[in-house]
């Protein structure tokens, strides 16, 4: 894990202080530690619509696969097409995930199994007997998206866990930064909003100043346009838009300045792939981290259409193929930048889908899901958490259609990432209000 690297940096800093007193020549090493190695970034990839995890990570041993194929019937993937996981021979990946298979087998990708929104440890028995508090509005897209993002009881909590991390760490790590700690390349999401911090939004491939065709008039016109959004109007929505617009002018100028002389990445990202375009933009922002003067960053990317109520086999195949290729290119880009161990990417999604197929060759809204964590710091090639028993009405089913009760909480998953990122133990409960209900706040996958 990162412990060795962090303590190394701390020691280097101490030795450098000694150097100022004329003791040892370690200044150069310290500069290196601060400029590159002390950087960390988290990258959230949100799969909007609820990815069917049952066909993402599939039992591969004879008994397990037979049980899977029998219940999944028309939605079952052919065993021969599955991509086996060398370190986890009982499981295999969807055929559209060859890049993720290779990353798993090389130890840079971990799987966290049956993770979902929870307030406290929950089982089929305690759920059906109403003996536990469960997240509000299970099975509803917007509610479950937001509860994954805010780690709270309901969508009503107006800050996301990334936003609260920024609230806690921004002053310490990014005191002189020219943009916020959080950057979204996938539009506005609750995930990014803190109580005292807000994100910068970046349109992939389009991060500069607004265009102006008035030649020498432009400077003066810009000044007046900026003046107009500083005028008070007496209407709250105008004030709110004034603030967003003023920030936009400032961030666009900062991003333009930081990126104007940057060399293009050599890593080739797949074309016609919305997620790849977003991740490429994130890689470019990481590339200019020194100019942006940031030591900690959280990025949000998202891709949609995982709500496969019908025609699931063909739809999910295309979506997963795009995700796998995009994540692989992103990992290669972090290698090119020499930050593959400083950047950890992970997936989130509304929920998984019913293990039982529906009559439209699709599946419906469910609960616990399997997720991927990618990066050089990841203790990869392993599955964390507990894979559910694939039995309708069985010990992990919240009902009778294979909507798995999560055995690992989304808060535990997120808290593990947050601690790697630098959230200290004594601030963990401020970011994750229900983490104390669970026996472990660190699953050890990074």
């Amino acid at each position, binding site marked *: 894990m990162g412990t060795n690297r962090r303590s190394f940096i701390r020691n280097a800093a101490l030795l450098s202080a000694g150097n100022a007193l004329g003791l040892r020549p370690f200044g150069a090493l310290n500069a290196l530690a601060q400029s590159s190695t002390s950087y960390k970034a988290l990258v959230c990839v949100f799969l909007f619509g609820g990815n069917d995890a049952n066909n993402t990570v599939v039992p591969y041993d004879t008994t397990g696969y037979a049980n899977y194929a029998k219940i999944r019937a028309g939605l079952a993937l052919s065993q021969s097409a599955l991509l086996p996981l060398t370190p986890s021979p009982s499981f295999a990946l969807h055929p559209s995930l060859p890049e993720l298979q290779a990353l798993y087998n090389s130890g840079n990708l971990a799987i966290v199994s049956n993770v979902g929104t929870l307030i406290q440890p929950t089982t089929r028995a305690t759920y059906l007997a109403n003996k536990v508090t469960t997240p509000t509005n299970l099975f509803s897209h917007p509610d479950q998206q937001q509860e994954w993002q805010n780690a709270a009881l309901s969508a009503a909590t107006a800050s996301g866990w990334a936003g609260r991390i920024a609230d806690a760490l921004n002053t310490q790590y990014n005191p002189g930064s020219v943009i916020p700690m959080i950057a979204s390349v996938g539009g506005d999401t609750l995930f990014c909003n803190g109580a005292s911090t807000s994100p910068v*939004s970046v349109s992939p491939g389009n991060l500069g100043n607004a265009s102006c065709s008035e030649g020498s008039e432009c400077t*003066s016109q810009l000044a007046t346009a900026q003046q107009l959004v500083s005028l008070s109007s007496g209407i709250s929505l105008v004030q709110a838009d004034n603030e967003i617009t003023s920030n936009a002018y400032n961030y*666009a100028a900062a991003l333009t300045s930081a990126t104007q002389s940057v060399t293009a990445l050599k890593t080739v990202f797949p074309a016609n792939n919305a997620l790849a375009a977003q991740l490429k933009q994130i890689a470019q922002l990481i590339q200019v981290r020194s100019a942006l003067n940031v030591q900690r960053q959280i990025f949000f990317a998202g891709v949609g259409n995982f709500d496969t109520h*019908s025609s699931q086999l063909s739809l999910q195949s295309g979506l997963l193929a795009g995700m796998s290729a995009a994540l692989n290119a992103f990992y290669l880009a972090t290698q090119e930048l020499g930050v593959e161990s400083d950047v950890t990417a992970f997936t989130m999604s509304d929920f998984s889908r019913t293990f039982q197929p529906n009559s439209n060759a699709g599946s419906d809204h469910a609960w616990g899901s399997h997720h991927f964590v990618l990066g050089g710091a990841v203790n990869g090639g392993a599955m964390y958490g507990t894979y559910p028993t694939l039995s309708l009405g069985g010990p992990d089913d919240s009902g009778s259609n294979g909507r798995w009760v999560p055995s690992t909480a989304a808060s535990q998953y997120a808290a593990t990432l947050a601690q790697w990122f630098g959230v200290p133990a004594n601030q963990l409960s401020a970011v994750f209000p229900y983490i104390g209900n669970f026996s472990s706040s660190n699953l050890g996958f990074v």
Partner: protein
Amino acid sequence: MPSKMFWPFTAAVLSLSAFLLLPGCTLSPTNPASSAPPVSVQVSGTGQVRIGATDQLKATVTNATNTAVTWQVNSVSGGNATTGTISASGLYTPPASLPTGNSVTITAVSVASPTASGSLTENILNPLPVVTSASTVGYGTTGTAYLIDVIGAGFVNGATVEVGGVSQSTTFVSATELNATYTSTTGQSGSILVAVDNPAPGASNSASVSTPLQQATATAAARFLDQTSFGPTTASIAQVQQVGLSAYLTQQFNTATTTLPDIPSPYPTQCATASYPCAESEWWQVALTGNDQLRQRVALALSEIWVTSTDTVPGEGMTPYMNLLANDAFGNYRTIMQDVTLSPAMGIYLNMLNSNKPATGQIANENYPRELMQLFTLGIDQLNADGSLETDSSGNPIPAYTEAEVEGFARAYTGWTFANANGSAPTKFPNNTNAWDYPMAAVEANHDTTTKTILSSVVLPAGQKAEEDLKTSLDTIFNHANVGPFVCRQLIQHLVSSNPSAAYVTRVAAVFANNGSGVRGDIKAVLTAILMDSEARSNDTNSTAVDGGHLREPELYITNVLRALNFASTDANPTTDYAYMSLSNYANNLNERPMRSGSVFNFFPPSYVIPATTLNAPEFDLENTASVILRLSLANALVNNQISGFTVDLSATSALGQLAASSPTQLVSTLNTLLMHGQMTAGMSTAIVNQITAITSNPAERVRVAIYLIISSSAYKIIN
């Protein structure tokens, strides 16, 4: 409730305190000898005072040489802003608004013997309202509907405006301003007498003032058009001023649908590989040039509630869907529920099309049944009549339906597929004819006929046909109390204001429940209630009377600027050449490509709250530090005539250019009326006039810069 009941008892205990505490007094060396008669205090006064006035109280101290007292209000020395204040001499000033229970206890404490005190209950009454002026804005040709703006003092929340002694529907703006709507008798002209009633406690009437009935101003007309069309134009502002707001509404209700033509097969060359850009071209053309502006605007709002998307639905499926919404826009909400449910576009999008009865080991598709309730009719939780969340005894929201009910509906909606190409009933399932112009039709053999429990404990008995299950299902949903507040609040958000008051939602939802003739779900009545409500009209006379409005979503931003400035297609045959499709690229940059939402949750959800605020503002989901810059670039392209396939004349010889040459002030004033209802702030106007006055000998640039500065501003982007 209990605290009110105990209040007099507590006061009585206070007045007796000097006696009750006597046994302990012997312990204190400073107390007088126990044989001395006890000091007592009595407070006298009128016992009531109006807000805005004062009351002089008197304290009588007996059995003490020093008769000085200190004063308390509700046990606080000198009182405070919520209970009122009292001076050292006993002059009581009530608070600015009524305190809890409409009364306070005033206590005088003896300085000589601080354990001795006396109290009096002071009842606080509402102030006397005073009307200093009133003005009217007419909405009808001959003047039958008017907004009355009343200025004065002493108005309280709950005050009503009276015209000729009759109470009118009133909106409280502030202690010095009220708005009301007034319907005159046909042909009534001249002046009316306006007064204000404050409610109890201390109910009272103001004196009346006389004010003439006046017709719509350009500001009122332009604001109304911003709410009811794809953007005001010089001509439409003049038209509304001429006929009045009500008559314009009636004209629009009676204007037939401009139908989007079917997209031919094979596809036109302009959209040979995917037909949706041709559908977009048709929609842009109707939005920009159709006479049925209100109908199409409402259809847009409906399409952002009943969301489908060309992500899944091909262009030739989308145009009949948009026509359906436009045709139903002034009908009944139950009709919309029926027509959308059976539309092939929605059928494809949310999978009710070809949803088969489940075989052994399968469940029925839950996509449409869940979203029909969650997004199109009920919302996920029980609502109060004002659209707010109903809560249980623990303060938690109450789910409007259960997962089991979703599963029941899912089976009820099985068995539907495309009609035959000629509209006749299908005989096979699935029947993949792509008959987009006809409602889906049922194949009974593929309908689940087992018994189902749906919403409100309604049971669909076994053996019913698909049509029977559907009718009972939709009737049950339609009659749920959530539908009115849920739908009306969203329609208000799309047309008028992101944050309507609870009272506004309640008024409109009441019309949804009953249009006055016992009909539930009458959309025409609902639209009239939304648009003619005093909360919608207040800012016609005072741009900040109601802190409302909503962000101009990208599609409306584009249509507003194009219509106001008279952009024209450069194509000789724009309809058949699908020349309007180029506009979609600009909307797409701002994440709102027409009819192509990324999910069923629309481009922006109705519940969106602006980060770091408590402001509910749906369209702001598309407004962030990246999209703002892209919109500024679009503003630059618009004023510089760089919109692909379109042209605009902002040259020195154009009308605006000639105005710019002679008078920057006049130019800004003209643009103010056209783009900002004449409600630009003085500071903004001055800044723009100064900016363009400094541009010499280039009138065209003056026009471009002036327009750019307006349409890049937040004050323009918010429709208020």
